[in-house]
């Protein structure tokens, strides 16, 4: 193929270089970039994907701590939101999430009931943030109603807002919004789907 100058177009030369060796080299260079970026303090958000019984989870951390856990619905949109709200300096960097990944694996295997990794709660604001903080006090294996949680967050009439707070919890599973049920005992909604909520509650049943 030629353009108006009679020269071959981009792809002709570029394709010649697209060797297997090169495709193998890029992951190695990526790993080096992850290390050097973290060492230089330039890795504002590191993320990885983790397979779990409730589907593939996206885990994201800042240097301050775990900042986002997301169900598999739309990981690309989740990353765009993190780019906008935290920083576009985002790299796929599984190593930065080794610890929380291990804790989640242990939780799903029934070997762990609490999470010890530091949390970065900057995505929780205002009254919704207060509710999301209160979620962390609901112990493993127990549940509360949306109304009770509204009470605990200091506004018993804000049941609807509590529902919103649970639905928009940036750290599901680790911050246990799945332990909040309707006052009639029915499950209510869940960001990861009702099946995921049921599975988590069953997992925590003694």
């Amino acid at each position, binding site marked *: 193929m030629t353009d108006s100058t009679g*020269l071959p177009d981009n792809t002709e*030369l570029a394709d010649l270089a697209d060797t297997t060796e090169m495709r193998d080299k890029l992951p190695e260079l990526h790993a080096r970039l992850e290390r050097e970026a973290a060492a230089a303090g330039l890795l504002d958000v590191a*993320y990885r994907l983790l397979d779990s019984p409730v589907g593939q989870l996206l885990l994201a951390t800042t240097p301050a701590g775990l900042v986002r856990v997301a169900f598999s619905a739309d990981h690309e949109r989740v990353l765009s939101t993190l780019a906008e709200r935290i920083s*576009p300096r985002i790299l796929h960097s599984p190593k930065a999430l080794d610890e929380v990944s291990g804790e989640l694996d242990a939780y799903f295997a029934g070997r762990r009931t609490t999470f010890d990794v530091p949390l970065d709660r900057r995505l929780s604001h205002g009254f919704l943030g207060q509710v999301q903080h209160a979620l962390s006090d609901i112990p493993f294996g127990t549940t509360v109603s949306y109304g009770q949680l509204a009470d605990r967050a200091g506004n018993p009439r804000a049941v609807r807002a509590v529902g919103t707070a649970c639905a928009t919890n940036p750290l599901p599973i680790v911050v246990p919004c799945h332990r909040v049920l309707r006052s009639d005992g029915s499950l209510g909604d869940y960001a990861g789907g009702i099946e995921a909520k049921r599975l988590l509650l069953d997992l925590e049943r003694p």
Partner: protein
Amino acid sequence: MMTKAPFEAVVADHGATVLRVCRAVLGSHTDAEDAWSETFLSALKAYPELPAEANVRGWLVTIAHRKAIDVTRARARHAIPTADLPERAGSDLEPPDAAVWRAVRSLPPRQREVITYRYLGGLDYATIAELTGGTAAAARRAASDGLTSLRAKGAAVTLGIDE
């Protein structure tokens, strides 16, 4: 307002292009990898300030050009004067396009640079002229001359008399 893509997408979309550019300009694989790493580290640092509508590939190739110069200077400082390093041994280890890349590397530096930035980096001649000096027209001529000799080498490769 356009939302800026996570930097991971920049690496995924342009990592291979930048590596090709670094290899074409620097030749040595080790030097090219150093330049690639320096390029993306530097890009990561500056990324939040990059306008969302910027030409990301052009931006990266521009950084790669500067980093390649840095690597070349560092190598010159540390060069062992008597050592004339042999080509990497073992032709069976070479990728299938090695002959083409040897041909690219054998071009005069000016032609090699222009060809790399135009055809691998996708920069226009005006931008290349800004980076490497001279005029856009001169850059276009250098690219044309380089391609002529690449075609000749390509023919030589086909005829099996390249070595």
